[in-house]
């Protein structure tokens, strides 16, 4: 069973937050989540999060886009109806390729960009009408919130968090 009680520690400075994260990690507590109003550089490294693989996904999507463009134009312009349009050599794909490159390029970028964004939305569970998962509205403005699971060690953890410079510490019962 997952721990149903968590501690919310609130900080007002990203530098303090960073050193707090390092301290909490050093004490081997598990940080469930951190809410910040803006990207804090190096926070992912301090938390030990795995690097994103979205660039790899984008590269594959780009290849798919390139393939779609090539197959589409080869079918339309060369195989299905190889018309003579202004003397362009529509005998084979290669012979007429320079004319297709702008579309190949654009579709590669289109697929890479859009599918990557959609992947990002899916993986981070973002969509319209999605209920916000914000534990404290102040974290969208100027407060930083660290959420740590507790398992019968509230007091030690609370003391540690106080030491790290948390301005507010509260025990939250997550049971629903």
């Amino acid at each position, binding site marked *: 069973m997952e721990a149903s009680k968590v501690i919310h520690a609130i900080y007002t400075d990203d530098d303090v937050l960073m050193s707090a994260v390092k301290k909490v990690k050093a004490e081997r507590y598990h940080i469930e989540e951190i809410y910040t109003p803006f990207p804090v550089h190096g926070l992912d490294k301090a938390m030990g999060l795995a690097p994103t693989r979205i660039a790899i996904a984008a590269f594959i999507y780009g290849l798919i886009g390139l393939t779609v463009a090539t197959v589409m134009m080869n079918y339309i312009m060369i195989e299905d109806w190889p018309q003579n349009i202004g003397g362009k050599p529509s005998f084979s794909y290669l012979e007429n390729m320079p004319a297709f*490159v702008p579309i190949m390029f654009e579709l590669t970028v289109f697929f890479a960009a859009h599918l990557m964004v959609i992947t990002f939305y899916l993986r981070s569970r973002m969509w319209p009408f999605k209920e916000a998962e914000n534990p404290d509205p102040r974290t969208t403005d100027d407060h930083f919130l660290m959420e740590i699971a507790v398992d019968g060690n509230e007091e030690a953890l609370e003391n540690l968090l106080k030491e790290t410079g948390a301005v507010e510490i509260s025990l939250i019962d997550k049971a629903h």
Partner: protein
Amino acid sequence: MYTFSNKLKTFSFILMILGALGVGYGFMTSHKSFEEVETLLAEESHHGGDHSVDASHDAHVSDSAHGEEAHAQVDEHKEHIEHVQHQIANRPWSALYVAAFFFMMIGLGALAFYAIQIASQAGWSPVLFRVMEGITAYVLPGALIVVAIAVASGTIGHYNIFIWMDPEVVAHDKLIQGKSGWLNIPMFALRGLIFIAGWSLYRHFARKFSIAQDTAEDKSNFKKSFRIAAAFLVFFIYTESMMSWDWIMSVDPHWFSTLFGWYVFASMFVSGITVIALITIYLKSRNFLPFVNENHLHDVAKFMFAFSIFWTYLWFSQYMLIWYSNIPEEVTYFITRFNDYKLPFLGMVVMNFVFPFLMLMNADYKRIPWFVVMAGLVILFGHYIDIFVMIMPATVGDRWFIGVPEISAILLFAGLFIFVVFTALTKAPLLVKGYPFRKESEDFHY
């Protein structure tokens, strides 16, 4: 302070001596008499399976698609032999010129990159400034050599690179006559000297202010170097464009292209950045640059990656616009290249685009020195081929080969380049001391 290791110095001298010998050999073997060329051509057509000498001559005549009359054929035959004779004589000149231009353009590309770093007040690159300054030391001798070879080919030589220098050709050529206000040797030399004077003056003062800033109490030298960098970039973009018309585009005086200056710029810029990366990695491996780390390498490699793509964009834009409209007076440029230079013409797209694109896309790979070195060597070789394909079709036509004259010329100028650049590197400490962004650059982290 950097000390020029004796090993490297000897190496550069060996390159220069080997190169000079090969270049001399190239010049000595390129003067073929009329009869020699005649037998050479006859032999070549024998290899093609044609056993009749007369028939092979007829084939040449029909190749050039001219008069059908019998006595005209004799003239055609003579003209053809003379044409080939001239092409063979052109080869060592062009080989020398291509290599000279290639190394000059590395220095000039690095100079432009350096000026941009200063004018944009980049925070990551100041630790590399001394490496860049070392490379730009080659601009003055290198560019003078390029102009000297160009002018010599029209005065000492027999108009071996630029046919517009030949008064006899101009007399029969209305198109070149129309351009002779721009294309004439005195003006060509004068323009060349003005370009070189401007570039070298900037290089001289930039270096002077950079060294003066090391011990200065205030930032006045930094401000001065910022101002002259901005002024130089304006001067550079005009003169670089004109330089590309003069030194490269005018080998095909019947042809012109509007984005040619940009195209040559992209080539020199990416080569310059690549050499900055290679020399940085070399010096780092010898422990002369303890303040340079993989983050700096990552940024330089990103520039190599991005400007390889920029080069491809311009290469393709020029090619595709001309291919698409297929206007006879401009498309001949690509037809000769496509027919006679298929492998280098298409191979350089692979080396300058596909290879660096796939190799340098991954962020982790850009931080691995040997990976950047491998990609950089391919990029440099690709851009040598790029210059080769710009010059050679106009001078030696289908008689091209990358043999002794070409490789020797590369060795000669590579040796000179190494000697000049590494000598310049010994002249000042490898870290800019008083430059305002030095600290930021040392702590640079990506």
